[in-house]
């Protein structure tokens, strides 16, 4: 199947229960190679469970999973050789220094001594940890530990990287730094599977976003596609003169007007087609528009609309 060959991750019918609590109830996902895929979901939706299964830490109850072209159940070793994982909870050796942690990873990836040292030094630099490199990780702040954690994942240059809330607890500058690192990785052909609580982050980074709710994917698409799925989008037109505003108001019946700003708010799904229709209609009447801006709902709106009834409760039981 062509989709399988060009995909870094392909999941069909993935199921997982803990006791009688169903966490994943037939999950289907496809992640193209060299893209960022973001999984969103409320607390307890099963994001970490999904990451754990895909990274061979947890066994699934049912379903087909391929990661980097290898079947997860039959070739877990091949999968492990291709992936890197930064879990939700810190996975560093607290008694070792930052540098020793990175060198440990280099040794486990069988890098030559010199190469390992170079790689460690480069990552310490990249993650802004040079100063702390000789201190035990137990003395690191939460954000420093998080950065070390990700640096350790990158030592082996994995093809597919799982990041479970990679920027939780990072300050804005570190977060942006992390985003840039992720973009660079993707530019180098790496595939990223990302979960996050920051919708802005998914918006910034992800090529495709899936929203997990009640153990299933309830929506999937680009950030733009998801935003268009829910109401609240509009086009704002600003006019040079009151006459324009009046004329447009007459033309586009269901708009709301803002007399002070000489502006009109027209409901719209923000798609190119609807914009073209709107502009053509204004053009036909030769109505002069000063400025046009499209307002789509942000991902927060999408998230709240899609997972509305379950944000505060756990997954279904049956």
């Amino acid at each position, binding site marked *: 199947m062509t989709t*399988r*060959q*060009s995909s870094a991750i392909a999941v069909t019918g993935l199921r997982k229960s803990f006791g009688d609590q169903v966490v994943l109830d037939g999950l289907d996902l496809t992640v193209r*190679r060299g893209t960022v895929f973001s999984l969103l979901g409320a607390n307890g939706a099963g994001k970490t469970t999904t990451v*754990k299964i895909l*990274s*061979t*830490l*947890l*066994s699934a109850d049912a379903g087909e999973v*391929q990661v*980097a*072209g*290898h079947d997860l159940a039959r070739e877990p*070793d*091949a999968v*492990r*050789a*291709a*992936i*890197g*994982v930064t*879990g939700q*909870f*810190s*996975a*560093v*050796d*607290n*008694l*070792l220094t930052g540098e*020793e942690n990175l060198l*440990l990873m280099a*040794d*486990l*990836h*069988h890098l030559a001594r010199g190469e390992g040292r170079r790689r460690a030094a480069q990552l310490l630099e990249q993650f802004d940890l040079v100063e702390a490199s000789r201190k*035990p990780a137990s003395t690191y702040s939460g954000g420093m530990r998080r950065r070390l954690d990700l640096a*350790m994942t990158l030592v*082996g240059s994995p*093809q597919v990287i799982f990041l479970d809330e990679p920027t939780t607890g990072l300050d804005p500058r570190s977060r942006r730094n992390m985003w840039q690192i992720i973009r660079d990785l993707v530019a180098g052909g790496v595939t990223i599977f990302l979960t996050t609580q920051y919708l802005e982050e998914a918006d910034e980074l992800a090529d495709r976003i899936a929203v997990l709710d009640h153990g299933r994917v309830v929506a999937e698409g680009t950030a733009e596609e998801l935003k268009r799925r829910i109401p609240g989008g509009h086009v704002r037109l600003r006019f040079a003169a009151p006459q324009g505003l009046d004329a447009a108001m007459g033309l586009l019946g269901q708009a709301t007007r803002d007399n002070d700003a000489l502006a009109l708010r027209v409901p719209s799904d923000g798609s190119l087609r609807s914009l073209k229709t709107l502009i053509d209609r204004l053009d036909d009447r030769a109505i002069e528009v000063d400025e046009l801006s499209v307002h789509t709902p942000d991902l927060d709106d999408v998230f709240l609309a899609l997972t509305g009834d379950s944000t505060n409760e756990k997954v279904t039981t049956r």
Partner: protein
Amino acid sequence: MSTHTLTGPAPAGLRFHPLRDSATMLRRNLKRMLRYPSMTVMLVGMPVVFLLLFVYVFGGTLGAGLGGPVHSGAVGGRAEYANYVAPAIILMTVTSTVQGTAISIAMDMTEGIIARFRTMHIARVSVLTGHVLGSVIQAVFSLVIVIGVALLVGFRPAAGLGGWLAAAGFLVLVTFALVWLAVALGQVSKSVETASNLPMPLVLLPFLGSGFVPTDSMPAGLRWFAEYQPFTPIIETLRGLLMDKPIGNNGWIALVWCAVIALGGYLWSKRLFNRVGSR
């Protein structure tokens, strides 16, 4: 398979390197021991305290009760008892180290880095062998100290070079076997406290054998247990090697026990570690 074209790692990259990975994990564990020295100090301290206690507090009386070629006076009894009890204390050094192994395994399993190791393409068993080798090295270090103290307080072994080498080899073997058992015990423990309690029987067994007093001085039921439990032949073998006395069947029985404990501990540990989704 078409899928291979996109995945990169050649078959050679998929080979495991258990020796290399074990050496890496060993280095990790030795570093951790150095960073956390209080544990090592405690592990050496316990047998030393017991040695001093048994030689100086109980030694006079226990030595007088040993029977055999009795020296005259309390000093003779104490000197003789020092020779009698030293092998048991030496073995206690091993069980104490092993208790430390269980604790550090349990501590390690609560650390996220173990989850990271599980997602990496490494020889899985190396996580455990790293601990085993580290503990054996730690035991050798502790043994040197404890035997040194024993010599200072009057332990006078009769063994020649051959006897010492045999005893050293035997001790490493016993340590190796018990450490594998401890690795399993450390993994079944849900907490660090449990991990320090579970190997307690190992620490107590030398008392319920020929470690501190000869078994014929015990009541019948206990004597039966003492004679058949693994630590008695182990202590008797060690005693025979160090005091240059015949060891009879004890050598073989001890070796078989070691083999059984090592194999059982290894298989159990490996199974515990390979449980998918254990946490």
